[in-house]
């Protein structure tokens, strides 16, 4: 589904990703962990197509298509979804209108008729249950005045509505209390299937108790330096990242 090969990316001339490799297959959940400044959020932004970042080398292949030059909206229409670490507040644009526009843009891209208002509202009702989102929030302006937990649930609600092939959760657990975390994780697990895949970017092991990964990768200094089964996350939680740096031969 996703093949990242020797990816180098920089912002304002500063190289952040320095030869990153990653392969994700349908049905898999990958966790990417790493210390602050390792390039975790950069990876998420580059995959989503944020224009501040420049890909200087390497390739990103998504479902047989080269992502490098693809517009962010086309990536989304192809089935890529980024759950933002800091979801943006958009005053004046209602969640409902925003989602209808997004869904119909995707359908148009795939030569499908727009959803009728009735079918759309039925879908909203069905999917808002996935993250126990108060239906009232759906009619409010996008993220405006939402609590931290509501914003993250709204991200997963959007994910449920858009049914992406590949979801990237960028520090979705940050700032969540345990109840909100459980609801968000539950939503992600409900949406999981053999045909889609998830990349969970996180600083803490805690989220991985709820969203259990098939693979854990350690991102450090712009590269994936270690990969392993889910137990690797526990080891990182216990020992921190210094032993990895030591393994890499760096002076700690």
């Amino acid at each position: 589904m996703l093949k990242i090969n020797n990816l180098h990316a920089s912002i304002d001339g500063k190289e952040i990703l320095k030869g990153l490799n990653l392969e994700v297959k349908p049905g898999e959940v990958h966790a990417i962990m790493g210390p602050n400044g390792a390039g975790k959020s950069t990876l998420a932004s580059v995959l989503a197509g944020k224009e501040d970042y420049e890909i200087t080398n390497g390739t990103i292949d998504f479902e047989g298509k080269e992502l490098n030059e693809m517009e962010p909206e086309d990536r989304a229409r192809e089935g890529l979804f980024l759950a933002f670490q800091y979801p943006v507040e958009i005053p004046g644009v209602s969640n409902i209108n925003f989602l209808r526009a997004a869904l119909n843009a995707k359908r148009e891209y795939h030569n499908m008729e727009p959803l009728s208002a009735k079918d759309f509202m039925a879908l909203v009702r069905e999917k808002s249950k996935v993250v126990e989102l108060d239906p009232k929030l759906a009619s409010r302006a996008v993220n405006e005045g939402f609590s931290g937990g509501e914003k993250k649930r709204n991200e997963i609600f959007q994910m449920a509505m858009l049914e992406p092939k590949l979801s990237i959760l960028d520090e979705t657990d940050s700032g969540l209390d345990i109840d909100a975390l459980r609801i968000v994780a539950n939503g992600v697990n409900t949406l999981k299937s053999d045909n889609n895949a998830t990349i969970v970017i996180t600083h803490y092991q805690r989220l991985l108790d709820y969203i259990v990964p098939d693979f854990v990768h350690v991102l450090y200094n712009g590269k994936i330096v270690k990969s392993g089964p889910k137990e690797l996350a526990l080891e990182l939680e216990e020992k921190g990242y210094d032993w990895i740096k030591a393994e890499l031969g760096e002076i700690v």
Partner: protein
Amino acid sequence: MEVAVENIVHKFTKAIADNFSGGIMPENVRNKALADLQENRFPTTRDEYWKYTRVNRISTKSFKTQQGKISNIENLKIADLDSHVVVFVNGFFIPEFSDLDALKNSGVNLLSQGAEAKFIEYSTHIFDQLNQAFTTDGVQIHVAKNVVLEKSIEIIHIQTGNEVINNLYHSIEIERHAQAQVVMSFYSVDAQQCFTNLNTTIRVHDGAHLTLSKIQTEDNSNYHIATEQVNQDANSNFTINTITLGGELVRNNLNIRVNGQNCETNLNSAYILKENQLVDNHTVVDHRVANCVSNELYKGVIDDKATAVFNGKVFVRPDAQKINAFQSNGNVVLSNDASVNSKPELEIYADDVKCSHGSTTGQLDEKAIFYLRSRGIGEKQARELLVQAFVGDVLDKLQEPVRAHVDSILENRFGWQPA
């Protein structure tokens, strides 16, 4: 120099007068205005009141008085609005689209049919003087005590032809505890370089309510200057919504005197400009007495080489205590060649008041655009959604079906999908 200036006004008025037969203003008003015009000149940007707006696009033309015809008012009348309709073409009343008896019963009478032009105020401004000298028609709306008008009064103004002036005068009087909604819309039908010059005087009596919604949507080659003089008595409520979409040069002078206590005054405006448009809103809210509230919200989106001007004055006179006066002007600029001149002014001479004003001019939030795009919404649509959202809180002040009518104009003009 003086001689040359005089000649411009003389030439300008002569072109209008050529085909003008008397009009509807009282003789003394008209003669005074004609005499004043002899001494007057067009303003320049050295005049503070016109600092950002050059009127030479208007003053160098030769506008004529000329009746016009239109075949129907389809698409011009607001669909589903339960209203009494009055139609003017080039400043002349067109009887076939109106039910005169129904209008009379609602207190609407035509100046050209004997109604009195009430509340006329002497003015030093040249466009007011032109109006008083050359007004061809207008309505007198008089809503009697305790009457709540079920139907709106819908005044449709149409310009047609080439270099034609539309001089109109309306007076609106809402008596004690009466209530009315008036909608004024402005259109061009095959019009180039026409000029609408409208004066309206409004008196809202004790306990009365008036909502006036103006939809200015003439084609971009035309000009529009409107002046409203509003007087509010105690316990009254006056709301004006001004939606400005069309016109090469539009100047709105809105002067509101709040003369009685416990009044509410709302001024809302959205202007969405492109090409070479210049839209200038000058507002004055004069709080002369205590215990009143005013809310002013003016928001605009300016694209291409268009210019927006906002000058909003709020006066709080000595002893006008416990005034809550809020004013906000927000602008989003979509192109490097667009410009905004915004000047909010508060003059407060009372000490126990709550007043605020703010002015912002900026661009669309790039983070929000990326967020929308990351969900599959194309960049153009993302920008449109944000622009619509920006003026949305002003448009939300419009009651249905006026709102739906404005949405349909926006859809035709900008391809916006109704929110």
